[in-house]
C-alpha cells in the first residue's frame, strides 16, 4: 500500500474521467485501483481512446459530481 493521494485522469478523446478512489465498478475496476495497475491496453469505455491519451488532472467535483462519476 502507498499513501500517495488518489489521482484523477481525464480522457483527451471525450472527457470521460477515471478517479482512482472511485474505480469503475460497473466496468470491473474496484475502488482504489491505481492508474498504473490498469492494463496498458485498456481503452476509454466511452470512446475507445487508448489509456496513454488520458491526462492527470487536478480538478474538483461539482456538488454531487463524485456520485455521478462512480456510475459513469
Amino acid at each position, binding site marked *: 500500500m502507498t499513501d500517495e493521494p488518489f489521482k484523477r485522469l*481525464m480522457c*483527451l478523446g*471525450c472527457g470521460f*474521467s477515471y478517479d482512482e478512489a472511485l474505480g469503475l465498478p460497473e466496468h470491473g475496476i474496484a475502488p482504489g485501483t491505481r492508474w498504473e495497475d490498469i492494463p496498458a491496453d485498456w481503452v476509454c469505455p466511452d470512446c475507445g481512446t487508448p489509456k496513454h491519451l488520458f*491526462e492527470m488532472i487536478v*480538478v474538483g*467535483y461539482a456538488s454531487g*459530481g463524485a456520485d455521478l462519476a462512480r456510475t*459513469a
Partner: protein
Amino acid sequence: MSQSFIIRNEERGHDLIKSDGSRSSYIAGHPDGFVTRASSFNFHEYQGGRPGFGTIRVFGDEVFHGAGCGYNMHPHHNFAICAFVFGGELTHINTAGEGMVDRLRVGDYYVFSAGSGGKHSELSVTTEDMQAIYLWVLPEQLYLPPSYHRGHFDFRCRRNELVQLVGDADGALPIPQDLRVSRLIADKGRSFHYAPRTLGHGTYVFVREGKIRCFGSELGHRDSIGISSVDGFDIEIIDDDSDVLIVETVLVDEANIRKWESEHAGH
C-alpha cells in the same frame, strides 16, 4: 518573464477522416463524406505537437465535406466544447438540458459544457462544406450539470472591435472556466491592444484569415501564437478583412504541459 510560442499553419496536425471503413460509425456521410481537421494541439492521431495551452486541449480547424458529413451521435463528459461556424451550416443535435436540434450558420457559435455526460451529433446536411473551429477546454469542476448556449457574432456591425463571444462580458456566452474567447475582424492599418486579466492568464491568438503583426511576429493565414506572462500586447492588422480569434485562459499548473515544455525548451 514573457513567453511565447508560434504555431505556423503547416506545423499543425492534419487529419483526413473518411466516413467509410473503421470510422464509418463515427463519421457520417458514407460513402463519400470526409472531415478534414487541422489541430493546433495534440488530438487523437496527431500527437506531434504541444499538448495544449492553459485549459485549452483542442483547437481544431475543421471542414465537413459533402452533404450529410459530420460526426454521428457520440458521448462526452466534462469538456466545455465550443464551435464557431465560418461557412456552411452546422446541424447540432444535443442532449443537454431537454435536448435540442440547433442549426448554426456563419457567425453562429455554441458552448456545450458536457459536465456529467451528454451526447451530440454534428452534421452538415447541405451541399455546402461546413467550416468551423472547435475549442475544447478543461472544466473548472468535474460532473457539472450539462449546459448548452448559442450566440451570434454580427461581423457587419462589429467590425474593427474586439468582441468577446465567450466569457464574462455582457452578452458573452457563459463557460465553466476562467476563459474568454474574442473575435476581431478588422481593416488594414488598425491596431488593437489586448490585455489579459492577469499575468497568470495566457492568450492564444489564431489568424483565421488575413495577416497581422503580434508580439513581434508576422502571422498569416491560420498561423497562431500563444503569449504568457505579459500585461498586454498589440494586434496590428496588415491585411484587410483579417479575422482573428483570441482565447485567453488561466494558466493552470498542468504537469503534462510543463513536462512537454521542459523537453522542448527553445522550441
